[in-house]
C-alpha cells in the first residue's frame, strides 16, 4: 500500500520525459497526453489522501544513517492537496497561453516533471529526502525560467541558480549540524532536536536552515530572484513561482521548524525573534515594493514575496494556532495568487500589455478577465466573504496570543501590508473599468476575453475562493487536527 507513495512522483516525471521524446504528431495530441497525465496524477493524489496509507517507504540508503524515504502525513496532505488541485488548472491555462510560443515539447516536459518533483517534496519523510527533491526542483525549473532564451531570461535563470543552489547549500549545512547533534532521524511532529539548555549551535543551525529555505520562500534580503523570474512565461510564474516552487520553500521551512528542530527548542529564543523579525519585515517590504512597481507581473511577484512571509510569520510564532493560520494562508494564497497571475498572463498573452498603466479601460474589452482579477484582488486584500480575510484574521489572532514585541511588530506589518495590498491591486481594477471621458485610448480586436481553456480555470478558482471565503469551517478543523499531531 505504501508503495503507492512513489507513484505521484514517478508518473509525472515519466510522462514529462516521454512527452518530449515520443514523436507525438501534433500539439493537440501532446496537450492531450499531458492533460491525461496531470489529471491522472491529481486523481492519484486524491486517492492517496482518502486512503491515507501509513508507514514509511524507504527508497534508498545513501549511507548507513541517511535514508531517502517517503511518508504521507497531515502536512503532506495539505501541500499535495494544493498542488493536486492547481496543477490541472494551470496545465489547461498553459495550453492556451503557450499556443503562440516555441519550444513547447521542452516546456511541457519540464513543466510536468516539476509536478512529480514537487510531490516528492511534499511526500518526503525526512530532511535529506526533502533536500534532494528541493535541489531537483531547482534544476528542473531552470529551463522553464530560461524558456524565452533572450538576454533577460538567461540573466534571470542565472540569478535563480545562484540564489536557489546557494540557499539549498546553506540549508544543507544547517541540516548536517542538526544531524550531528540529534542523529539523522525522520520527521516527528514537534521536532526531534534535543531540548535542554539553550544551545547556540542548534539555534545557528536553525537560522541557517531558515535562511537557506527562505531563499525559495523569497524572504528579504534573498528575494531578488523572484521578481526577475517574472520574465518566464506566465504559466511558469503563476504555478511555479506563485505556488509550487515558493510554497516548497515555505513548506520546507515549516518542516524544519515544526518537524525537525521543533517549537520547544526554538520558542522564545533569539533565533525565533530573528525569524519573526525577518518575516515581518519582508511582509512590509514586499508590499511596499509592489506598490512602486509598474510592471504588472513583477508587481505580483513582489506581492508573493510579501504573502509568503505571512506564512513564515505564522509558522515562526511556534504555536499551533500560528501554524494552522500559516497553513490556511498557504492554501488560500496559492489559489488567490495563481488567479491574479493568470489574469495578468491572459492580458499579456492576448494583448501584449505588460505594464499596469496600459490596462486602463481594458476592463470594458475583457470584462470576464478583469472581473476575475477584481475578485481575486479583493480576496487578497482581505475582504470578508473571501478567503484572504480568514487567513489574515487567523494570523492576527494567533500573533496576538503571544506577549512578544516581535509578534506585535508582525501584527502592525500585516495591517499595513493589507492597506498596501489594497493600494496596489484595487485602484488598477477601478481604472480598468472606469475611464475618464475624453481620454484617448486605443484598442484593437485582440483585446478581448480568452477562450474556454482559460475561462474555465478562472471560474473554478473563483468558485473555490467564494466557497472557502464563506464556509471554511471544515477546512480549518482539518488543519487543526493536523496541527495537533
Amino acid at each position, binding site marked *: 500500500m505504501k508503495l503507492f507513495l512513489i507513484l505521484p512522483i514517478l508518473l509525472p516525471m515519466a510522462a514529462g520525459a516521454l512527452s518530449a521524446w515520443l514523436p507525438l504528431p501534433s500539439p493537440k495530441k501532446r496537450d492531450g497526453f499531458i492533460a491525461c497525465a496531470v489529471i491522472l496524477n491529481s486523481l492519484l493524489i486524491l486517492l492517496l489522501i482518502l486512503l491515507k496509507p501509513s508507514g514509511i517507504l524507504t527508497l534508498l540508503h545513501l549511507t548507513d544513517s541517511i535514508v531517502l524515504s517517503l511518508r504521507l502525513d497531515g502536512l503532506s496532505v495539505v501541500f499535495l492537496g494544493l498542488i493536486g488541485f492547481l496543477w490541472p488548472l494551470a496545465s489547461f491555462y498553459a495550453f492556451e497561453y503557450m499556443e503562440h510560443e516555441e519550444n513547447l515539447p521542452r516546456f511541457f516536459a519540464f513543466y510536468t516533471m516539476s509536478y512529480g518533483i514537487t510531490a516528492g517534496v511534499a511526500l518526503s519523510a525526512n530532511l535529506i529526502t526533502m533536500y534532494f527533491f528541493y535541489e531537483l526542483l531547482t534544476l528542473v525549473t531552470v529551463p522553464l525560467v530560461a524558456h524565452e532564451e533572450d538576454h533577460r531570461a538567461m540573466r534571470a535563470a542565472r540569478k535563480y541558480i545562484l540564489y536557489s543552489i546557494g540557499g539549498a547549500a546553506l540549508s544543507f549545512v544547517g541540516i548536517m549540524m542538526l544531524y550531528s547533534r540529534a542523529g539523522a532521524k525522520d520527521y516527528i511532529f514537534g521536532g526531534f532536536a534535543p531540548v535542554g539548555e539553550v544551545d547556540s549551535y542548534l539555534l545557528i543551525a536553525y537560522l541557517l536552515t531558515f535562511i537557506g529555505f527562505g531563499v525559495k520562500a523569497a524572504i528579504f534580503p534573498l528575494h531578488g530572484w523572484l521578481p526577475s523570474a517574472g520574465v518566464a512565461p506566465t504559466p511558469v510564474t503563476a504555478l511555479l513561482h506563485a505556488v509550487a516552487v515558493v510554497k516548497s520553500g515555505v513548506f520546507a521551512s515549516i518542516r524544519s521548524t515544526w518537524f525537525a528542530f521543533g517549537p520547544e527548542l526554538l520558542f522564545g529564543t533569539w533565533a525565533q525573534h530573528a525569524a519573526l523579525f525577518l518575516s515581518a519585515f519582508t511582509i512590509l517590504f514586499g508590499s511596499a515594493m509592489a506598490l512602486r512597481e509598474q510592471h504588472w507581473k513583477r508587481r505580483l511577484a513582489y506581492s508573493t514575496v510579501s504573502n509568503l512571509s505571512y506564512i513564515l510569520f505564522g509558522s515562526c510564532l511556534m504555536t499551533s494556532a500560528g501554524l494552522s493560520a500559516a497553513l490556511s494562508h498557504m492554501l488560500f494564497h496559492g489559489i488567490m495568487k495563481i488567479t491574479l497571475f493568470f489574469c495578468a498572463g491572459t492580458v499579456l498573452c492576448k494583448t501584449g500589455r505588460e505594464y499596469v498603466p496600459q490596462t486602463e479601460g481594458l476592463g470594458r474589452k475583457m470584462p470576464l478577465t478583469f472581473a476575475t482579477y477584481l475578485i481575486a484582488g479583493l480576496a487578497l486584500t482581505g475582504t470578508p*466573504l473571501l478567503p484572504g*480575510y480568514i487567513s489574515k484574521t487567523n494570523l492576527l489572532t494567533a500573533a496576538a496570543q503571544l506577549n512578544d514585541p516581535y509578534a*506585535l511588530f508582525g501584527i502592525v506589518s500585516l495591517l499595513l501590508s493589507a492597506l498596501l495590498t489594497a493600494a496596489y491591486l484595487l*485602484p488598477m481594477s477601478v481604472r480598468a473599468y472606469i475611464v475618464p471621458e475624453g481620454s484617448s485610448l486605443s484598442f484593437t480586436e485582440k483585446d478581448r476575453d480568452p477562450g474556454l481553456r482559460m475561462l474555465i480555470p478562472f471560474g473554478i478558482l473563483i468558485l473555490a475562493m467564494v466557497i472557502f471565503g464563506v464556509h471554511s469551517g471544515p477546512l480549518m478543523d482539518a488543519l487543526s487536527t493536523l496541527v495537533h499531531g
Partner: protein
Amino acid sequence: MMTNRFLILVPILFPLLCGLAVAFAPALQAGSRRRPFVLFSLGGTFLSTICVLLLLRGHSLHLCDLAPSIELRFAVDEITCFFAGLGSFMWLMSGIFSMEYMQHETNHTRFYAFFLMGEASMLGVTLSANYPTLYLCFEWMTLLTLPLVFHIQSEESIQAGIKYLLYSFAGAFAGLMGIPFLAKYGTTLNFVHGGVLDPLLTEGHEGLLLAVAFAAILGFGAKTGLFPLHAWLPAAHPVAPAPASALLSGVVTKAGVIAILRVIYYLFGAQFLAGTWVQTALLTISLLTVFMGSSMAFRENIFKKRLAYSTVSQVSYILFGIFLMNDTALEGSLLHVLCHSLAKGGIFLCAGTIIYKTDKTDVRQLRGIGKEMPVVLWCFTLCSLALVGIPPMSGFMSKWYLALGSLENGFPVISWLGPVILLISAILTAGYLLPITIHGFFPGADFDYSTLVKKDPTLWILVPLLILTTLAAFTLFPQPFMALVENTTEAIIGGMLS
C-alpha cells in the same frame, strides 16, 4: 405570533436582491420600468426595516460561521433601532429626489444597483451583533458605495473614489486590529453592554489594549471624517451626484459613528476607557476636527466642498459627545445625529438641486438664487438654521446638551474648552451657511435682475426636501424624538457612568 429570527435579514437581503436585479435583470433595463422598481425597493426596505425594528427588538440571529472563530451574528438592539430607521428613511428620501435629479446623468443602471446594494450594507452595519459582522458590513459598505463616488467618471471623481477607497480601507484595517486582541483578552466578540474585556486577562496589559482601542477608534473614525483620516471626505462628497453626497454625509458617516459606539460601549467598555489618555486624546482630536472643519468650510468657495467640510466638523460634534462618556453628552450626540442627518441631507439635496438646475458650483455665483428658486432656498435656510443651532431649531438642543455634558465631566481643560469651541464653530457655521441665504434672497442693489429665470424643480425634488426640512426643525414637535433619544441613551449607558 412566532416571528422567525431569519426575518432580521430582510432589511439587508431585500435591497441587496433588488440591487442585483437592477444590475442584471434585462426587464429592468428600461428607465420607465426601473424607476418604479427602485422606488418600490426603497419603500419596501423602509417599511420592512420599521417592521423588524418593532417586531424583532431584542432578537438575535447567528447566521453562520465563516471560519471556526468568525461568526456572523445579527441582532436588533437599541442602536439598531435608532440608526436603521433613520438610515432607511434618508435613503428613501434621497431615492425619491434622485428620480428627477438623475435625468441629467448617465449610467442609471450602475447607479441604482449600487445605490440599493449600498443601502443593504449600511443596514447590515446597523444590524451587526458582533465585531466580525460589523467589520464585514463596514468593508462592503465602502466597496458598494464606491461606484457612487466616481459615478460621473471624471478624472477628479476617479481620484476621489480611489482616495475614498484607500482611506476607508486604512481605517478599516486599523479597526480590524481590535479583533485579535479582543479575542485574546475578552470573553467574546459579540457586542455586550459594558464591554467584553475579562479583567483577569487584561491585568497588566492595559497599555497595549488602550493603544489598540485608540487605533480602532481612529480607524473607524475615518468614515466619520475624524482627523487624521478625514481627507477623503472633501474630495469624495463634492464629486458624487447629489443624492449620493446626501447619503454619504448624512448616513454613511453615521455608520462610522455606530462602529465607534460599539467599540466604546459594547466591546472595550466605557469604564475601561474613561479617564485614560485615550479619552483625553480622542476628545482633543474631535475638538480639533470640529474647529478645523468649520474653518476650512468658511474659507472654501466651492459649494459642495464647503458642505463636505461642514460635515467633517459636524460629525465630530457627535463624536465629542460620545467620547465624553456621560449620558447628557450622549443624548446630545444622538440628537445631533438626527439633526445632522436630516439637516445636512436636506442641505445637500438643495445644493444638488441648485447645481442641477443652474450648473453653478461656486458659492459666489449664487447671488439672487432665491429669486429663481425660492422654495429650494427656503428649505436651505431652515436646514441651515437647524444646523447652526439657533433656538428653537433642533441643532440648538443638541449643542446645548453637548455643552452641558462637557461641563459636567470635569475634565481639566476640555470641559470648558469644549463648549467654547462648539460656540466658535457655531459662529463659523453661521458664517459659511447663512451668507448663501442672504445673498440668495437679497443680492444687492447692483445685481442684474434681468438674468433671473424661475427654475423651481418638480415635485420629485420638492417633496423630499420639504419633508426633510420639516423634520430638521423638529423642535416644534420635540416629544417623540426626545423620548427616542433618551431611551436609547439609557439603554447604551444604563447608568453605569455618571
